[in-house]
C-alpha cells in the first residue's frame, strides 16, 4: 500500500491525457496529491494534478452510499426507454464495462470528443488513407505539413518529442527538418527548429480550409487550376508546397480533427488524405491524424472490436447499429429522444452537458457541476488510481497505465458492472 505520509516519486509515467502518450513523466505522489516534477505540459499537468475532492457518491446532491447510488442509477436506467451514454474519457476496461451495460439497457454509446474523431472516421470509411505512427515520424519525416491546425495548442510536446528529436535511425539531422503550416498559424514557437528556423506559414481564413484542401489534392493529382488564388493564397505557393512534398522522400501531413470545427469537415479531411495517397504514386508520404486526448481513441477502438463499429452506436433494437449523425448524444438530448444521460468519464473532469433528463455521472473525483446530477459516483483515474490501458492517437500502440496512489476511489468499470448486476 502507498505510504500516505511520505512522498513517493515515480519515473517514466505514461500520460493517459495527451493522446500522444508521453511516457517519460516524473511524478510525485504525496497522500492523494499528485505533482508533475518533470516533462509535464499544459495538458498533462492539469490532467495529473487535479485534486481529489469527492470520495463519496451523491444522490440529488446529498451524500449517499455506493450501494444506494448504484441502485438509484439502475432505477433510472430501468425507467429509461432510450438512455444515452457519453463522456468516455476512459481506459479499455472502463469502456468494456460500459458497453456491456449499454448493450443490456439498449442504450446509445457516444463520446464527448466524438465530433473530431468522426471527421477522421468518415474519411477513412469513405476512401481510406495511408497513415503512419509517431516513431515513424520521429525517424523518417523530412517535411511535416500541418493542415489547418494549431498542433501545439492541443499537443504541446509533439514537436519536442517527434520532430526535433536529437537523432534518427538513418543519420538524418532532425534539426534540418522542414515544417509547413497551411491554413493556420501556430500559436507558439514549438514548430521553430532548434537552430531557429521558423516554419513556412501560409494562412487563410478558416472558412477557406475546404477549398484549400481541395486545391492541394487537385495539384497533387497534377491538375492545372484556373484560379490564381485559393482562400487568398496564390496557387503558385500551393503548387510549391505540393512540389516540396513530392521531392521529399518521406513527408507526413497532420491535422487536429477536433480543431476543424466546421460543417462537413470530414470532406476536408478526405481531400487531405487524397492528396497524400496521390503523392505516393511517386514518393512516400503518410498522414498522422492527431487526436485521442482523454481516452477518446481508446473508447472508439474498444467499441470497434466489441461491436464492429467505432463510435455512436445504438443498441436500442437489441443489436449494435452505427449512425454517426443520429446517435450524436447532443442531438438526442436536444431533440428530446433520449430520456436519460449517463456520463462516464474517469479521465477527463469535463462535466456532462446540461440536460433536462435524469443524469447519472460516473466521473472523475473533482468534477464540478453547474447543475448537480441526479446521481454522481466519483471514481478513480486510470493511470493515477488504478492500472489500465489506453490507445494513442495513431491507433497502433496501446500503452499500459499504472496505479500511482490509493485514496480509496473505486473504478468506473466496477461501478458500471455493479449497476449492470443490479438491473
Amino acid at each position, binding site marked *: 500500500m502507498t505510504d500516505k505520509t511520505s512522498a513517493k516519486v515515480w519515473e517514466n509515467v505514461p500520460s493517459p491525457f495527451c493522446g500522444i502518450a508521453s511516457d517519460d513523466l516524473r511524478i510525485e505522489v504525496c497522500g492523494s496529491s499528485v505533482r508533475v516534477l518533470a516533462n509535464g505540459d499544459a495538458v498533462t499537468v492539469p490532467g495529473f494534478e487535479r485534486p481529489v475532492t469527492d470520495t463519496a457518491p451523491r444522490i440529488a446532491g446529498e451524500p449517499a452510499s455506493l450501494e444506494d447510488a448504484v441502485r438509484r442509477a439502475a432505477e433510472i436506467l430501468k425507467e429509461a426507454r432510450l438512455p444515452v451514454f457519453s463522456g468516455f474519457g476512459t481506459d479499455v476496461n472502463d469502456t468494456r464495462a460500459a458497453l456491456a451495460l449499454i448493450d443490456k439497457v439498449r442504450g446509445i454509446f457516444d463520446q464527448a470528443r466524438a465530433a473530431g474523431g468522426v471527421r477522421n472516421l468518415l474519411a477513412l470509411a469513405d476512401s481510406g488513407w495511408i497513415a503512419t505512427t509517431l516513431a515513424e515520424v520521429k525517424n523518417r519525416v523530412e517535411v511535416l505539413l500541418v493542415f489547418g491546425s494549431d498542433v501545439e495548442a492541443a499537443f504541446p510536446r509533439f514537436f519536442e518529442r517527434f520532430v526535433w528529436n536529437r537523432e*534518427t535511425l538513418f543519420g538524418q539531422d532532425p534539426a534540418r527538418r522542414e515544417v509547413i503550416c497551411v491554413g493556420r498559424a501556430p500559436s507558439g514557437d514549438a514548430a521553430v527548429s532548434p537552430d531557429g528556423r521558423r516554419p513556412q506559414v501560409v494562412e487563410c481564413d478558416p472558412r477557406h480550409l475546404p477549398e484549400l484542401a481541395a486545391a492541394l489534392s487537385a495539384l497533387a493529382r497534377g491538375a492545372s487550376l484556373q484560379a490564381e488564388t485559393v482562400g487568398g493564397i496564390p496557387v503558385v505557393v500551393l503548387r510549391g508546397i505540393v512540389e516540396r512534398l513530392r521531392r521529399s522522400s518521406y513527408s507526413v501531413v497532420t491535422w487536429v480533427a477536433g480543431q476543424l470545427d466546421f460543417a462537413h469537415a470530414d470532406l476536408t479531411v478526405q481531400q487531405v488524405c487524397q492528396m497524400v495517397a496521390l503523392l505516393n504514386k511517386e514518393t512516400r508520404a503518410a498522414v498522422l491524424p492527431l487526436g485521442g486526448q482523454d481516452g477518446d481513441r481508446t473508447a472508439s477502438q474498444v467499441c470497434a472490436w466489441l461491436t*464492429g*463499429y467505432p463510435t455512436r452506436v445504438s443498441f436500442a433494437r437489441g*443489436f*449494435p447499429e452505427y449512425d454517426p449523425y443520429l446517435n450524436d448524444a447532443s442531438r438526442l438530448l436536444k431533440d428530446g429522444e433520449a430520456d436519460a444521460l449517463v456520463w462516464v468519464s474517469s479521465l477527463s473532469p469535463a462535466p456532462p452537458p446540461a440536460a433536462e433528463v435524469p443524469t447519472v455521472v460516473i466521473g472523475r473525483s473533482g468534477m464540478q457541476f453547474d447543475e448537480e446530477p441526479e446521481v454522481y459516483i466519483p471514481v478513480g483515474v486510470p493511470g493515477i488510481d488504478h492500472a489500465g490501458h489506453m490507445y494513442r492517437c495513431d491507433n497502433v500502440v496501446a500503452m499500459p497505465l499504472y496505479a500511482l496512489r490509493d485514496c480509496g476511489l473505486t473504478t468506473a468499470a466496477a461501478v458500471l458492472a455493479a449497476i449492470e448486476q443490479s438491473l
Partner: protein
Amino acid sequence: MLTKLAGASVYDPVQGWAGEIRDLYFRDGRVAADPGPDAAIDEVHDLSGHILMAGAIDIHSHIAGGNVNTARVLLPEQHRNSMARWLNPPGLTPSMGFAPSGPALRSPLAPAGLGRTAEWSSADIGHRYARMGYTTVVEPAVLPANALDAHLQMADIPIVDTAGLAILGSDDFLLGLLRGKAGQAQVNDYVAWTLRATRCLGLKVINAGGAAAFKWNVRQFDLDDVVPYYGVSSRQILQTLQRAVCELGIPHPVHVHCNNLGVPGNVETAVATMEAAQGLPMHLAHVQFYGYGKEGAKGFSSGAARLMEAFHRHPNITMDVGQVLFGQTVTVSGDVIAQYDRHGDASPGKWAVWEAECDGAGGVVPYRYRERSFVNTLQWAVGLEIFLLAEDPWRLFFTTDHPNGAPFTAYPELIRLLMDADYRASVMARLDQEALALTLLPHLRREFSLHDIAVMTRAAAARLLGLEDRGHLCPGAIADVAVYRPQADRRAMFADAAWVWKGGRLVVREGAVVDRPAGSALTIEPCYDRRIERDVKAYFDRFYSLSLDHFTVGGVAFEREDAERFRSIRAA
C-alpha cells in the same frame, strides 16, 4: 466430475481411430481413460449416430490487431449488410465473421440472445468458431508494436483459445543487427525476447524486409532484393530468422509469407523459398496465393502442379492453402507492398495502409471474389488443386487465410468442396471455363475423407504448433470435443456442430452457443541472454516513441489475472 460421451463414431488420427464406435470420458476438463465398469459417472450423453472429433484448430486466421480493427472501421457497411441478412431469413451467406455478437460481455445467456447481435465483433469470432467445432485459433500476424492491441482484442474473443505469431523481419532493430553483422546468437536472443515480450507462440516473417523497403519507396521486393540502407537481402533475413527459431527449439517452424504474393509466375518464388529453407523446418502460409504461373493468353495460369511437385520433394516444408471462395471479403496483410500494389482493385473502392513504429506495416483492401472472373476462378481452382494434389494431409493445412481468401465462416463450404467431387463439378459449371481449362481441377476426382479432415484440422495442426494437449483425444488431452450430425451435405454438417465442449464445458448445442467461458492465450517462453534487453532498451531510448518499460504485454483481460489468461506451452 466424470462425463461420458457414449457411442459416437470417433475420428482421432493420433490414435488411429477412423470412425469406430467408442465411448469417450472426460474429468475436470481433461480427457480421461475408461474408468472401468464400476466408476460413478456424473453425466452421460448418448451420441450414437454422431461423428466425434477433437476440437478443431485454425493455424492461420486474422482475428485481432490493427489490421482487423481498421477493417471494421473501414467497412461499417459490410457489417450493416450482415445485419440485414440476419434480420431477413438467413441464406447462410458467409459473413465476414469478424464480428459478432455484441459486447454482451456478461449478458444473460438466453439462447436467442447469443450470436444474434452484430456481425463483426470479437464476440462473434468466438461464437462462430465454436459453432463449427473450432476451439483454438492462431492470429498469424502480431506486429510487436501492436501486440498489446492484439492481445486486448483476443481477450474479448470468448470460448476459443487463441495464440499469436509475432512478426519480425521488417523491424529496424533486427535489420540494424544484421547491418551491423551481429552474430546468430544475438538474433536468437532478440527473437526469444520478442516472443516473450509480445506473449506469442511462434514467429512470422512477412515478405522479409519488404515493409521496411516500402518506407524507402521500394514497390517490388523479391527474395534476393536488398533492403535500402541496411544492405541485407530478403533471403538473408528469412534464413537468419528461420535459424533462430530452430536453434531456440521453438516447436512451430518459422511461419512464412513469401515475397511476390499474388504476382503471376510467383510459383517460382515459392519454390525458391522452399530451397532457401535448406532442409530445415519452414511453414509457408496461404500458398494458393503463390500458386500462379504466367502461361496462357492472359499471362496468368495455374502453377499448382509445379508447386506440389516441389512440395513433395521438400519434406521439411509444411504449407497452408489460403483457399479463395466467392463473395465479398476484405484482405488484410502486413505485406504492405502487395496491399498497396492492389489498391486499384479495391471493391468497394477504398483502402487503408498504415506503417507502424519502425516495426512493420499493414494494409486493408476490401475485395469481392467473383465467379465470372477469370482471375478469381483461377485462384479458386489453384487452391483446390493444391488440396487435391497433396499426398500427405499431415503437411498441408486447411485455411482460407481469413479473411483474405474467404471469411472463416465459409469453412463448411470448403469442406464440402473437398469431400464431394460431384458438388465441386456443379460449382465449376458456373465458373470461368477458360480459367478452369488452365488447371488440372476438372480431372481431379479425389474426395477427402473424414479422417483427412481430422488430420488437417486437428491432429496435424496441433503437432505443427507444438500444442501437445490438443488435436487428439488421448487421456490427458484438454477436453475440447466437437460432435457433428452426419449429413450428406457436408457443408450443413460442419456449419453447425451438434455438441461442442471446450475444456469439458458444453459450449454449443445444436448450433447455438449455450455458454461462453473465457479462453486462454497460448504462449511460449524461450530463454535468452538478458543482455539483449540492454540493447533493446538503448534502441528504445534513442529512437522509439515509448519507453521499453511500457512495451511488454500484460493485464489484457477484463476481470481476469494474467495467470488465468496466458498459458505457456513450455519454456523452450
